[in-house]
């Protein structure tokens, strides 16, 4: 008798239904309710969070769906990023896309359901489905400004690259299936070990599988050299969607990476396993991401492009935790993503509100903002300092954790490289602060965020500072997630 434990999938089912409710109620109100739909969406996300608390822990669908601590931890991040993305969307839905509010919010929710489903998958097929469900709504969302060339270009680019990378990923997964005769990650782990013990080595097919999976997930994560799409898509897409892409979608990619590599292929993350050592591949990609992301960000004059390159670099830091592939590594990668949620969503919320009210995404337009809108500018300064990793902001604790994991796992060179590039990154983060604070005279722009945007900004600032000074509880939670992999 197969075990259908529907109890643990209730949050996903609820959110899925809620997305339909949101779309229908927008249609039902003849698209005349500018605020209500947004609040309805936010409420739905909040309720899902509550449901998640009550219906967690357990296995369903013959091991295909697990609601373990790792899944719950990342679901919190997905819901948080969806909540913050929706909260900062009110300006757009009032102005630019007022005829498609329901679809806009509905697609965000569908994508979130995909992420949640993905993070619970302990099996390759459902994992792949989750990933597709995550990205397909995002293709549409990226192109949501139908009359804007940049946005349409972003959508198309994202679609082509996304579809291509999915195919590569799927091919990699099929090779893995061919080698191990299973799609269940845990069984795969065992079968691979047996295979290795029996023959002493595993042929080039395995390497091909690993490279293809890394490439496929690397596209989703915008890891260098699979990052080419990111700056254009980030710039063209509506800013809240960019934020959602850079946090939610990346966190989803990270879960896939953790599940497949740190769990399934764990025994190969070691020097002695060369050339099967995937750790070194990801370490090299991580260092490329840190170097290229940070250096390219130095030259950007558009805030969204700057944040795009910055998020490429940030993912490089998360990868330091992934290559460590131990308890500390998983803990730190999860914790980094958690802090990154607040800092990056906050920074994008600032860019969204600023863009809505001034029509400009140029960094130079922020000049003198500290005088005309002091709180708004202070919020941005906090996010920038957190992304740069300056204590007491959360970004510091997060960087400390991933670097500690790297040192413990023996990747000292990667840590030193990461720290050096972190110094470089300070330059462009501080550049925003410089523009806002050091410019003589007062800006004529007075930013007045809407209530939900204020809520998002407050959430971001409080999260960054509180979890920076007292990271203890979240770190404990993140450490429990590592227990899922048996560390």
């Amino acid at each position, binding site marked *: 008798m197969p075990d259908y434990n529907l109890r643990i999938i209730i949050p996903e089912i609820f959110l899925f239904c809620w997305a339909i409710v949101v779309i229908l109620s927008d249609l039902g109100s003849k698209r005349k309710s500018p605020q209500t739909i947004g609040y309805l969406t936010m409420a739905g996300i909040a309720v899902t969070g509550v449901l998640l608390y009550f219906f967690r822990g357990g296995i369903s669908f013959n091991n295909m769906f697990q609601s373990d601590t790792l899944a719950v931890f990342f679901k919190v991040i997905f819901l948080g990023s969806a909540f913050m993305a929706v909260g900062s969307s009110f300006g757009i839905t009032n102005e630019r896309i007022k005829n498609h509010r329901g679809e806009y919010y509905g697609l965000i929710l569908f994508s979130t359901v995909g992420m949640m489903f993905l993070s619970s998958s302990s099996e390759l097929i459902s994992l792949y489905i989750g990933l597709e469900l995550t990205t397909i709504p995002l293709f549409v969302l990226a192109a949501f400004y139908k009359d804007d060339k940049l946005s349409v270009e972003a959508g198309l680019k994202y679609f082509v690259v996304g579809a291509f990378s999915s195919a590569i990923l799927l091919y990699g997964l099929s090779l893995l299936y061919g080698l191990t005769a299973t799609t269940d990650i845990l069984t795969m782990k065992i079968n691979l070990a047996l295979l290795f013990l029996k023959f002493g080595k595993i042929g080039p097919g395995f390497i091909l599988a690993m490279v293809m999976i890394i490439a496929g997930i690397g596209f989703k994560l915008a890891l260098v050299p699979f990052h080419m799409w990111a700056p254009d898509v980030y710039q063209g897409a509506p800013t809240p969607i960019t934020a959602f892409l850079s946090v939610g979608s990346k966190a989803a990619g990270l879960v896939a990476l953790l599940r497949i590599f740190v769990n399934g292929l764990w025994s190969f993350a070691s020097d002695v396993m060369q050339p099967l050592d995937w750790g070194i591949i990801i370490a090299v990609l991580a260092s490329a991401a840190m170097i290229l992301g940070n250096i390219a960000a130095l030259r950007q004059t558009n805030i969204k492009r700057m944040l795009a390159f910055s998020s490429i670099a940030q993912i490089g830091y998360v990868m330091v935790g992934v290559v460590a592939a131990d308890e500390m590594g998983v803990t730190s990668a999860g914790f980094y993503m958690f802090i990154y949620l607040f800092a990056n969503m906050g920074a994008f919320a600032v860019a969204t509100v600023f863009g809505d009210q001034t029509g400009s995404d140029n960094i130079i337009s922020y000049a003198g903002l500290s005088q005309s809108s002091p709180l708004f500018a202070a919020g941005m300064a906090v996010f920038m300092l957190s992304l740069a990793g300056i*204590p007491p902001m959360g970004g510091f604790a997060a960087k*400390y954790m991933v670097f500690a994991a790297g040192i413990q796992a023996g990747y*000292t060179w990667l840590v*030193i490289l990461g720290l050096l590039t972190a110094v470089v990154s300070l330059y462009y983060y501080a550049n925003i602060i410089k523009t806002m604070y050091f410019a003589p005279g007062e800006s004529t722009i007075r930013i007045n965020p809407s209530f939900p945007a204020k809520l998002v900004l407050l959430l971001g600032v409080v999260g960054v500072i509180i979890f920076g000074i007292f990271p203890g509880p979240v770190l404990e939670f993140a450490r429990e997630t590592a227990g899922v992999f048996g560390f």
Partner: protein
Amino acid sequence: MYDYVLSSLIFIPLAGFLVVLLLPKNNFNLIRWMASIFSFVPMIISFVLTYDYFFTYSGSADMVYIEGPFKWISVINAQYFLGADGISVPLLALTGLLSFISIIASFNIAKRVKEYFAFFLLLETGMMGVFCALDFFLFYVFWEVMLVPMYFLIGIWGGPRKEYAAIKFFLYTLFGSIFMLVAILVLYFTSEPHTLNMLTLIQTAPSLGHSLQLMCFAFLFVAFAIKVPVWPFHTWLPDAHVEAPTAVSVILAGVLLKMGTYGMLRISWPMFPEATRFFATPIAILGLIAIIYGALVSMAQKDLKKLVAYSSVSHMGYCMLALGAWGSVTALAGCMFQMLSHGLITGALFLLVGVLYDRAHTREIAAFGGLGVKIPVYTGLMVLFSMASLGLPGMSGFVSEFMVFIGAFSSFKIIAAIAVLGVVLTAGYMLRMVQRMFLGEFDMARWGGLTEINLREILMVSPLAILTIIIGVYPGPLSDMMRATLENLVNLMAR
């Protein structure tokens, strides 16, 4: 009674930071006085602490006023752990005094007053924290926390090249700090059980492998040397000092530079005695280079503030020379004396430069002449501190330099002998500056309207003058206070 005294030193300025942020933006006087109160209280506490330490713990080398260790982040074993001993107590008092004086000296800031005082109080929090923290993670947090307000203070209220100077300062010190972070992580993972407690690490770190010790020492040295700054890491200093507003220069020279040497005394030296011995001669040579190079560059300066800035490089060189002579209590005491006396004297010199700049709007030495006729009181103070800076007997500069030379001579005869030249060079540029600015012809047409130093400004520098003379005439109590701690330090290093 002294249960949470160190925490109060850290958190009263932080409370002040929050209070000032909540005050109305345009009530300048309220903001100024509130900031003064929130820096006055820690100053008094730090004085009481010094008094209590002197009479209660002078003969003991133990860490006192200990708070904690309290659990903070259990996953990485970071703790909230504070304590003070003979090295940190005088520095806490110096920080308290200079912070308060700097806040008083900032009353003439007219632009964005609220932000200025808020950042200043945040800066004080960081500085106090560095001198009390006994947990490596906590130490690092305070060490970095300070950079942010400093960046803003230089960048918003600085001179013409403020943006360049601010980011240069920020990047330079962060660059140094990351090496410290690597060393911290390595120490954490090599200690068993993993710990970030500095007192434990001082016990266990010397048993690490030779090359690991050398590496950690070198990494920490880079971080601290940038702060001191030791030649060749000094290039951020002239820019930052010259562009920073007066009060910020005072803090930079008076307190921030000391954090580098403090870090060496507190962390690098006792934790890595073997590496200290290994690197002792190069460190002394770096000190020597800084002494001579700083003095020579000072000589060539046309800008008064730049002259004082480079003289800091030279004076901190004496500290490095003393630190190189690790085995001598006299040398280390000389280092401590030099840190304190440089804080007092250079702080005062920067204040006085600011006083003149406020009136004349130029700092070019050649623009002045014969000022002694017009502003005699100012001239008197300036001459006093110049004499203190060049090490005139009877003032603290003499005591500290003398102790450094005596202490260093036993280990490095030639280096110490050459370093004495530095005193002559210092006299050279200081006396030349005094001569060109305050003696000679007075340009009535240009400087006829120059006004005398006012009472507030006199009150600002007078405590510094008094302390400089007291330490110069009667250094006994101060050296009694730190002797036991330093003797213990030398014993630790002889391991």
